[in-house]
């Protein structure tokens, strides 16, 4: 009996630790993604961003979190208090729960579900309830309208995202996250290259899923309503914000797993590219070297010391990442290399995807709501359906008729692009006629 319990405890300690890390670390990570966004925004706008709180603004998220925690908790008068209290929790829970099926490296996964990817998509769809209930319980006409608009947008783009995922799943043949990455390893090429249109559709749909610009009308400040978050103040608002950024991480992780090879290094199967194994350490060394180079040029002594400390940290990271490449160490701990390097590549890809989100946010203006819905329903959904059919065609060509990979997928990509061009042209033509002109 004791052995049973012990066995049981050991078999669940890994998922428990992973879960604990996610619940404890993810809010902090989300806070630092916010800081990263502010710095990237500042960089693109020719300014510096937060610099005062902590060296180079690094303590800013902590200051913001503290401020939000001690703010007065305002609940609107006629609001339904129970639901008002509950709604942000739904959003956050759904977002964090969705992280549980994703594998950040071969070592780090809470549950390798059979239906892993479908689980992530379905659970993050439950976050819609958080938005709708939050908008309704605020007892404000405009919050409700904003929440319903946001939810309608989410539902529309979920279909397109789902069909794009189906396109990738056709290539993978399985829903489990680990096996999808294994399939990309076997294919030798990432699914983003085999199905680029699907990847593009997923990219656009995921931006709309997370309510980011250019699809952020429901929560834009210069529009009439500030959306479902209007009446939420203090920490409740922080929970919604946390849910939004966690959703971004989830969506980036799905894209990385399905389209960008997960924890595989570029050209994972080709021995000729083995020198890429040194890339993580070289990158860390590069960043460390840059920190040392900039350290003397800082205006304030504290910032110089800080830069030196970061440089040393980067060198430490480089050493840790280079350790598995030494044969002695890798013989001792064979799982070290895939674990560390896998996690590094995964996080790098997720980071680049999120950087792309931010880049697009600061470049493009906002879509109006009807244009947004039109784009989702009349362009993305037909395109993603055609994409699924195209990939099916490519697989038939490859498996049954013996065509090579490149001709089969190249042909179907071209066909799908042709359909996309036609859809885009048709939409433009309709756009010119689509002018509301009042009574003249």
């Amino acid at each position, binding site marked *: 009996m004791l052995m049973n319990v012990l066995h049981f405890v050991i078999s669940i300690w890994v998922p428990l630790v992973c879960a604990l890390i996610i619940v404890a670390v993810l809010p902090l990570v989300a806070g630092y993604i916010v800081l990263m966004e502010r710095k990237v925004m500042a960089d693109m706008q020719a300014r510096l961003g937060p610099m005062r709180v902590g060296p180079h603004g690094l303590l800013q998220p902590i200051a913001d979190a503290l401020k939000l925690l001690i703010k007065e908790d305002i609940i609107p008068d006629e609001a339904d208090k129970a639901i008002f209290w509950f709604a942000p929790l739904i959003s956050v829970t759904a977002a964090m729960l969705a992280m549980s099926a994703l594998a950040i490296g071969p070592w780090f996964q809470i549950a390798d579900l*059979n239906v892993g990817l*479908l689980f992530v*998509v*379905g659970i993050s769809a*439950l976050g819609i309830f958080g938005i*709708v*209930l939050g908008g309704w319980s605020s007892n404000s006409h405009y919050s409700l309208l904003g929440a319903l608009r946001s939810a309608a947008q989410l539902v529309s783009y979920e279909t397109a995202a789902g069909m794009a995922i189906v396109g990738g799943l056709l290539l993978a043949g399985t829903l489990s996250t680990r096996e999808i990455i294994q399939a990309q390893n076997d294919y030798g090429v990432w699914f983003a290259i085999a199905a680029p249109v699907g990847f593009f559709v997923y990219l656009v749909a995921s931006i709309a899923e997370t309510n980011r610009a250019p699809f952020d009308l429901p929560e834009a400040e210069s529009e009439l309503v500030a959306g479902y978050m209007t009446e939420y103040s203090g920490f409740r608002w922080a929970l919604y914000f946390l849910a939004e950024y966690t959703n971004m991480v989830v969506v980036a992780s799905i894209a990385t797993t399905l389209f960008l090879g997960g924890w595989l290094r570029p050209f994972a199967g080709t021995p000729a590219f083995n020198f890429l194994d040194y890339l993580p350490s070289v990158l860390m060394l590069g960043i460390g070297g840059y920190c040392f180079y900039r350290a003397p040029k800082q205006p304030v002594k504290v910032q110089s010391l800080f830069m030196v400390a970061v440089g040393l940290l980067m060198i430490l990271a480089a050493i840790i990442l280079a350790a598995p490449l030494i044969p002695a160490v890798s013989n001792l701990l064979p799982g070290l290399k895939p674990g560390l390097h896998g996690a590094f590549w995964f996080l790098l890809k997720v980071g680049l995807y999120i950087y792309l989100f931010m880049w697009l946010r600061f470049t493009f203006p906002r879509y109006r709501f009807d244009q947004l819905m039109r784009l989702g329903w009349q362009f993305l959904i037909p395109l993603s359906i055609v994409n699924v059919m195209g990939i099916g065609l490519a697989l038939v060509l490859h498996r049954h008729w013996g065509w090579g990979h490149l001709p089969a997928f190249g042909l179907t990509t071209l066909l799908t692009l042709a359909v996309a061009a036609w859809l885009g042209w048709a939409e433009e033509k309709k756009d010119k006629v689509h002018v509301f002109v009042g009574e003249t």
Partner: protein
Amino acid sequence: MLDHIVFYFFAALAVVSAILVVTRRNVVQSAIFLITALLATAGIFLQLHAEFLFIVQVILYAGGIMVLFVFVIMLINMDVSLHQVQFNRQWWLGLLLALVLGAEFTVAIAIGRSHLSFGEPAPASALEPSTQLVGKVLFSEYMLPFEIASILLLVAMIGAVVMAKKKI
């Protein structure tokens, strides 16, 4: 043993939520408890290792149909019905019928108990991954019902669009 704990947890959750659905005054709270009941049922599916059913229950029921319910509830003005007088004059008839039905069930189970036998449930690992099973069967043996269901949904969508649009 863990199986039993998980099962009883989800089952209790489902039953309590179901009772709360019909006893709440506030319509939105009823909807929320319905969502909880559906999710608890999904949990039971998961515990039975029917993962595909679990996630389909979450996506379709909780994530699709209930979202629709919640939309409609929020767009319609519920104040009117809340202020209507609720009357309950034939409660004795309902109680009588419930007792009669309960008595019938009890007698039927008591008499036939010895004839009931449950076989040994197959260990969950004996099944292939359920997604593939469902997929194979759905697209080969049950193709016709599947297509008919799709056309039914299509007709419903077109009908909704026609009714809602102001001009075609």
